[in-house]
């Protein structure tokens, strides 16, 4: 019984979220029995393809050629599932995967669980834990179809090594004309920034910063840590920060090892988006701010005073 995983790449390179999904597939194969086949689409070097063995893929099926959109991914993965006779399909939690997986579910008549945070608690019946209510709660979902699809919540399972030798083979199959009728026009990439969803460290700030002109110190702290920057909803709404940095119930959900919240009161909607963070630091002038109840470490103080000192202390630690 084979587990198939879609191993997404960006211009030929894998990211942490790819390795996380391969590692999850290996854990699932161990629990359910079977081995892991990774599906890779696009121009990827032989070295990169075989590197998936580090995380437990014994077979890598490579569909060489141009990159495809989410609709093309669904078509190609459907062919790969049928060729491998796979019973489980694992996706990482990226936009492309989240787009492809529901289409694949219809093509294969497969049940799907998204925002999955753990390996199944039971394989018969097949039950997995997923985020619900935008991170405020979890649900245990039972999938009752022959083929089952799992889409991970990024940073929840973690990257675990499980080194095996990966045999690479060529896949035959391609996206359909219909898939390609969704035409690519251009990419507008935000360069040089650490991807917020994948980030291990996040520095986030809100209205306590008093104005957009004070964000330099937030960015300096993030730089000293090697962290991604984020913000609260009010700050994105009034245009101090770009929308894509908005973390919370209707923004981006993050699950870093460390989330530092500066001048954010901790409204329930914001907490929903950050509740999966492993450790939380809160810096706020108001000792009654609700965020302290969700925090591991707290400092009561003015962000404009505390943040530069914190940056210095971190630089000192890192030497």
């Amino acid at each position: 019984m084979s587990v198939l995983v879609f191993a997404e790449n960006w211009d030929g390179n894998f990211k942490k979220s790819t390795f996380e999904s391969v590692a999850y597939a290996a854990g699932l194969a161990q629990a359910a029995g079977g081995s892991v086949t990774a599906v890779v689409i696009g121009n990827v070097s032989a070295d990169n393809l075989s590197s998936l063995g580090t995380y437990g893929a014994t077979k890598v099926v490579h569909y060489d050629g141009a990159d495809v959109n989410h609709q093309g991914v669904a078509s190609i993965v459907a062919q790969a599932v049928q060729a491998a006779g796979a019973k489980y399909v694992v996706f990482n939690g990226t936009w492309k995967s989240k787009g492809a997986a529901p289409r694949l579910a219809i093509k294969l008549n497969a049940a799907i669980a998204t925002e999955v945070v753990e390996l199944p608690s039971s394989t018969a019946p097949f039950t997995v834990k997923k985020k619900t209510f935008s991170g405020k709660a979890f649900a245990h979902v039972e999938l009752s179809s022959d083929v089952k699809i799992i889409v991970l919540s990024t940073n929840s399972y973690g990257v675990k090594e499980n080194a095996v030798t990966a045999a690479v083979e060529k896949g035959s199959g391609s996206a359909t004309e219909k898939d390609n009728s969704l035409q690519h026009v251009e990419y507008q990439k935000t360069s040089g920034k650490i991807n917020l969803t994948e980030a291990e460290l996040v520095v986030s700030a809100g209205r306590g910063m008093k104005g957009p002109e004070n964000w330099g110190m937030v960015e300096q702290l993030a730089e000293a840590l090697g962290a991604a920057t984020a913000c609260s909803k009010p700050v994105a709404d009034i245009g101090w920060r770009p929308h894509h940095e908005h973390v919370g119930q209707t923004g981006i959900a993050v699950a870093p090892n460390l989330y530092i919240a500066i001048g954010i009161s901790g409204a329930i909607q914001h907490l929903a988006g950050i509740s999966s963070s492993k450790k939380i630091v809160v810096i706020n002038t108001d000792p009654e701010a609700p965020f302290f109840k969700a925090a591991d470490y707290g400092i009561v103080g003015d962000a404009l005073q505390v943040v530069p000192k914190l940056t210095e202390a971190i630089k000192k630690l890192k030497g």
Partner: protein
Amino acid sequence: MKILVCISSVPDTTTKITFADGNTKFNTAGVQFVINPYDEFGLSRAMQLKETLGGNVTTITVGRADTEPVIRKALAIGADDAVRIDADPMDSLQVATEIANYAKDKGFDLIITGRESIDYNGGAVPGMLAELLGINSVSPCVKLDIDGTTATMQTLIDGGKEVVKSSLPLVAAAQKGMVEESELRIPNMRGIMAARTKPLAVVPGAAAGNAKFKTFDLPAPKAACKMVSADNVEELVHLLHTEAKVI
């Protein structure tokens, strides 16, 4: 321009989540239900498109009669008519199948959904619906412009945005950006009065799903927060390094 907007009735974003019946059900007692925030961005864009291109906006909701206040709110915002598929929404497949069954022979040019619902966070309905109907889908869709029979859209990729084009019909899954927060439509008194008499068709549900929500639980409560003096940030850095081991 014939537009179908899918509306989910969800707990207000400020809701404190609890469960009932041995953690098998969401506890709706005292909960205020609202239009799913992502759907609201989509509905507001649909109204703008109707105003510039002409046409008709229909909403569709899979739910029981208790979702009607939310449906009436969508009508008060400006939708022309509404459909309620009378069934308990159980999973993404069932909801997508109901909507596809309704939409397949109605000739909609555009179907707008939210990126996901903020209760069960499946995010699967837009893609499933499009696959069932054999049309393109874009999720999340953070910009949507229509020129004749072509839609130009922006979607998110990991590390930026992508501009894509598609012929109609298609499914666009809204989030902030499709309209801005400031462009969200709020029902006025005239709209609320008009909504009372706008057509709301009730269609019996028939579709089945294949995923079951068995039980729920809440995140484990946090231990007490360790306070550090603002004059001693070195102590915080030390704790993060040696105790929490995150830096």
